[in-house]
């Protein structure tokens, strides 16, 4: 298996990138894989770009941060500019096609692939804005295969089970969001 997947998730504070990274890390660990998740937790967290660094593999992970990501998911214009520094020739760069004010020249060059997915739009129109980050989680899973969809659902259940108990329709919506995220990536690929 060799090197771990190196994943960068970035968005505005409140978009839920840290929760997604945390749940994916939990899911990978529950599966017996080695994961290392580190949030940035400086002042940016309070009203700036929030970045999560996640590595998942089969051997204990080395340094917590890295220079080049295998996949980057950027969810705002500032997140795009902030994360281009983590790109390399093998990086898959995913961004939300609904980001306003994003110019073509903001996007990184010389990467393996750039994917635009309408996650924000799908969340608003088909599900609920609050599951936007879960759609992103589905997208990451599809793009990397770091954990099976079922494991991600179990991890979600663990984290939000108490809410699902009160409102079972939330469970359906979250699970649908994972599936929708996976579809969006499959379509873009």
């Amino acid at each position: 298996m060799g090197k771990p997947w190196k994943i960068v998730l970035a968005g505005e504070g409140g978009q839920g990138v840290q929760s997604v990274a945390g749940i994916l890390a939990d899911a990978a660990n529950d599966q017996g894989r080695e994961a290392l998740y580190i949030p940035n937790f400086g002042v940016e967290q309070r009203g700036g770009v929030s970045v999560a660094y996640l590595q998942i593999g089969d051997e204990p992970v080395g340094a917590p941060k890295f220079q080049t990501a295998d996949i980057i998911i950027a969810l705002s214009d500032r997140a795009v500019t902030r994360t281009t520094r983590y790109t390399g020739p093998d990086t898959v760069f995913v961004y939300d096609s609904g980001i306003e004010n994003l110019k073509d020249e903001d996007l990184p060059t010389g990467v393996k692939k750039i994917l635009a997915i309408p996650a924000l739009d799908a969340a608003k129109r088909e599900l609920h804005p609050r599951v936007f980050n879960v759609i992103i989680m589905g997208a990451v899973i599809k793009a990397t295969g770091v954990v099976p969809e079922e494991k991600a659902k179990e991890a979600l259940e663990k984290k939000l089970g108490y809410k699902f108990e009160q409102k079972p329709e939330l469970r359906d919506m979250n699970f649908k969001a994972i599936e929708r995220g996976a579809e969006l990536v499959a379509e873009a690929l």
Partner: protein
Amino acid sequence: MTEKPVQEEKRVFMTGNEVCAWAAAAAQAEIMYGYPITPQNEIMHYWTRLAPKYNRDFLQTEDELSAGFTTAGGIMAGKRAFTATSGPGNILMQEPFSMAEAMRLPTVAIIQQRGGPSTATVIYSQQEVTMTSLGGNGEGLRIVYSTATHQELFDYTIKAFNTAWKYRFPTFVLADGYQAKMRESLKMYDPEAKGIKMVSTEPYVGKEGVPGVDRDPGHFRNTYNVEEELYEVLEQYIEDYDKMAPEVAEYEEIGSQDADVVVISHGVVSRAAKGAVQELQKQGYKVGYFRPITIRPLPVNEIRDIANSAKKVMVVESANGQLDRLIKEKVYGCNAEMIPFFKPGVGITTEEVESRLKELF
């Protein structure tokens, strides 16, 4: 008798701060004294969750000076006590830690390094090496374990209590904001189930009997009237420390004996150094990895051997040469050329170490 915090060995996935709280609980720590500061806060938070369950205590003081002195006081009362801090809090604690050195109090402190000088960042650095090892107006009669993984945070937090109480010198677990906040897997265990016996504690004051008649009187002083009196005490302390040093010094190494270039690093940066060295060894480079686990006292003989056998020694750290100074003092007169790779207050990646190393061949 309340149940043990960790019964059977189990794999867990948590932040480093949570690991420290569990480790202290598993090590039968009785009380934590603390004052909040990022990135250490959650050690206190988790401890306050664990403490009521396992019949332990917690005191939040009005500042770090007080947290340090109450830790010293708890120890004088015979409690397995500890504290945790970072950055400016570590500065304030130097006065109580100095007193702990003076009175041979086995304080245990977990330091989660943040950026400096001053408030700087709440994130990460390796800039508290000098202060944690040599801080205070004394001789640095301390033991400092620099951890690199969550497993080590657990292992060495437990060990810190035993080293402190066995040798009666202030003992530190030196980690950083990355280790504090990141999550990775480790195995938690009950020390006794692994054959680790916790060194027993005893009160310094309030003992039974009449001092000087039934038992030796306790002289726990941090004040002396004449120079010679102080000198005599310090001579004994330094002799004790030097005798202890080879017994507690620990290190990790990979192929450092027969390498042309050896990387020396400590703490979380050694994860990047190790990754880089392993990658380059695969590519056929004669490169080695050496990491002192105790940055005070250092494993001196091993470091000198490397500095005599290797052509170049590169010291990598997230500080402007704080580890480097400690190393250089020990390798005085050795042959290797010393190469600096310093990034004060910022993380260092495997890729960076690898490319810097390649330039040296």
